[in-house]
């Protein structure tokens, strides 16, 4: 079953994807933020439309019904060079929710450079310091020092909140884990970024975005009590792994975090269907804020951290789309609206995924089209005849409606989501490097 049909049947299609396609040349409809404001500042909207103008400025040959499925042999319609702005060149998401200090900098003529990676590196270092202090907080640290830790965590959350971009190309800006022993830190940071972006889309939450971000930063803090490392623990059956939840709750309580934050940490492995741990008592609520942290934890591991090994059935048929599998696995675990929102953030085909199009072209997803998550921008790796293109070829599936993704071959791999802003450096080794093994068992 095609993913799009599955999502429609299951009513998981994000509202933005259900909108009818805009007429050619019509400006993209603006999407209101949950509080009613329009997404992005006028400057940012102008910026986005600049990118749009870059696309439509190319000679566009109307996709007449008489044109057959494009292949490499058909010039014009199949291939157009598209000026896709590299992520490093675009202004950051700061101006979507400008902090006062950045407004002041702008007024002083200070360029707001894209320092996302620097912010992430610094946040990682700071979080590591906080973890160390929490690990030893029962030792020599004073009451005052312990009480400073929660404000510090909130500060880290707010610093990385600027990474949350309303164009949902988050995965463009996330680094791969370069050092294995830092995996917990990166996982915590990325979970927090996802959770805060989700929180911005949900209404009526009883915690602030910085509290949700702070809870996400600390959700796995209990694991630091197990220096042997997460990967050696049997996640599904080892009580030492499961104990990290209650251990984390104790640690976070001791630094004075509010009880609703402690609750999010307590719940981060729970599910709506009652599976997961700790076991829920009958009628116990699974608050939306807890679900936000829990679903972000799951998606961070399954989509960002892991690459899923391509598998083929015995008949040699194409493997099922793994986002499909992920949604089937967690359909009963989280609120539908939350899953829809998560899909709209991460994309049906997350940045870095290797996909096959219906003209047999294989490409790497390099950017999402925010209003059409099923139609990303793809860089060609192999053409329909199995050849690598001599020149860089970019396909914007939002512009080229004759093409569609038929399946995902591989999920984001280290080589596909590097920091380089140059699309040419992405995706070229996707089919050369071995994929990571899928982690066994379900995540709850």
């Amino acid at each position, binding site marked *: 079953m095609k993913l799009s049909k599955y999502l429609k049947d299951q009513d998981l299609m994000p509202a933005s994807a259900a909108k009818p396609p805009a007429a050619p040349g019509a400006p993209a409809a603006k999407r209101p933020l949950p509080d009613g404001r329009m997404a992005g500042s006028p400057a940012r909207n102008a910026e986005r439309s600049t990118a749009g103008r870059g696309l439509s400025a190319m000679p566009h040959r109307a996709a007449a019904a008489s044109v057959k499925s494009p292949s490499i042999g058909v010039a014009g319609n199949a291939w157009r060079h598209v000026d896709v702005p590299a992520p490093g060149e675009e202004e950051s998401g700061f101006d979507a929710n400008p902090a006062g200090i950045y407004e002041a900098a702008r007024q002083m003529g200070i360029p707001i*450079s894209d*320092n996302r990676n620097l912010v992430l590196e610094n946040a990682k270092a*700071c979080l590591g310091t906080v973890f160390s*202090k929490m690990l030893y907080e029962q030792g020599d640290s004073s009451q005052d020092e312990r009480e*400073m830790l929660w404000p510090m965590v909130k*500060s880290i959350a707010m*610093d990385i909140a600027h990474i949350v971009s309303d164009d949902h190309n988050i995965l463009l800006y996330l680094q791969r884990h370069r050092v294995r022993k830092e995996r917990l830190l990166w996982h915590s940071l990325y979970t927090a970024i996802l959770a805060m972006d989700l929180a911005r889309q949900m209404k009526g939450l009883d915690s602030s975005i*910085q509290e949700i971000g702070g809870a996400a930063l600390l959700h796995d803090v209990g694991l630091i009590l197990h220096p042997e490392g997460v990967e050696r623990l049997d996640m599904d059956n080892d009580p030492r792994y499961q104990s990290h939840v209650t251990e984390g709750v104790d640690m976070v309580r001791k630094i004075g975090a509010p009880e609703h934050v402690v609750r999010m940490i307590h719940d981060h492995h729970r599910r709506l269907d009652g599976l997961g741990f700790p076991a829920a008592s009958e009628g116990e609520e699974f608050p939306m804020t807890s679900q936000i942290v829990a679903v972000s934890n799951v998606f961070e591991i399954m989509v960002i951290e892991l690459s899923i090994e391509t598998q083929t059935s015995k008949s040699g048929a194409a493997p099922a789309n793994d986002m499909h599998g992920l949604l089937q696995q967690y359909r009963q675990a989280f609120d539908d609206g939350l899953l829809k929102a998560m899909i709209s953030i991460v994309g049906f085909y997350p940045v870095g995924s290797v996909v096959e199009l219906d003209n047999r072209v294989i490409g790497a997803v390099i950017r999402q089209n925010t209003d059409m998550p099923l139609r990303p921008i793809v860089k060609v790796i192999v053409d329909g005849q199995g050849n690598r293109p001599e020149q860089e070829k970019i396909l914007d599936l939002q512009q080229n409606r004759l093409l569609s993704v038929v399946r995902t071959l591989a999920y984001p791999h280290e080589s596909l989501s590097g920091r380089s802003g140059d699309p040419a450096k992405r995706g070229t080794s996707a089919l050369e490097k071995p994929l990571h093994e899928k982690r066994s068992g379900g995540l709850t």
Partner: protein
Amino acid sequence: MNPRRKVLIMDDDPVVQQLLRKLVESRGAEAVVAANGQEINAILVNGALDYDLFLLDLILPSITGWDILQTLRDKPQTKGKPIIVLTGAVLSGKEREKMLRQVNAVIEKKDFTMREFDRLLDEWLSDAAGEA
């Protein structure tokens, strides 16, 4: 403004560094910037500590604002000098109150305005403040 006034800016964000440096220098004071724990330690341990005001981001790589506060309070040359903390967090009333027991002023980056920052510089970097 006495041009001899010297301000140490401890912040890892290049945008904030530039902004604070510009604002401090526009008042005729000298601004020195340290971006991380190593640079700060180099100044606090080996450098001259003739600063009149410390601007401190609560979160820095490899060192926390708390550690820096401890050091500033322990050293005779810096003890008693005014400290303004910058934080990206939105603080509760209680958190702000606790922090103000340790420092002279707290700026939340979200609510930063140049007017308010100017007022703080007036308060803590004036000749009167320097002689206090």
